[in-house]
């Protein structure tokens, strides 16, 4: 499955990645996160227990199922306002 990954704020800075096309067998966002964590040091920032995510620009839960072509964003809790 092709996934368009986007990272923001602290996660973007720690990994040095703001945007990446990933080909993965992960079936949920949670599984995709495991794949990313396995990349090592810089990616451990994603172990954050307050990690939030969006699928196709809509907030969702980590166990959301993925479809080919999905845009998946991982980010820390939002701090607007």
């Amino acid at each position, binding site marked *: 499955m092709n996934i368009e990954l986007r990272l923001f704020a602290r996660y973007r800075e720690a990994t040095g990645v703001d945007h990446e096309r990933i080909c993965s067998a992960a079936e949920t966002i949670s599984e995709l996160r495991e794949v990313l964590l396995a990349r090592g040091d810089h990616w451990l920032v994603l172990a954050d227990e307050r990690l939030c995510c969006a699928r196709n620009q809509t907030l969702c839960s980590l166990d959301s199922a993925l479809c080919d072509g999905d845009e998946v964003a991982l980010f*820390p*809790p939002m*701090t*607007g*306002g």
Partner: protein
Amino acid sequence: MATYITNEAIAAGQRLDALAPSHAAGAVVSFTGYVRDHNLGEAVSTLYLEHYPGMTERALAALEIDAYARWPLLAVDIIHRVGELTLGDVIVFVAVASAHRQAAFEAASYLMDQLKTHIPLWKRECHTASTTPVWLIPH
């Protein structure tokens, strides 16, 4: 009457005057958020606001619809600044018009609560005491 993200300074007073859309509106409540010179005991020098282009605009549009569904509103303004900001800059301007004051107060307060937690925006502060910027974490 507008919901948008901007890199430019927000003219809060002008927006306020422009909001009362018709003679049916008796009440306009506004919230203006400014970059403060302190936060959690640290002296702040600048603030950077990151957002998720595309999703932010969608989320703001959905929030506006949500507010209209919850209260009898006549106009809603939600404007959020992004990018590099300095002390005293307007971060956010929210205003609602309604025939009645309670609906206007409730809706404005609700919109601010939602902006803090449900719109993909992130604040990074520079403190005068340090060269390392700090991403804010909600309580």
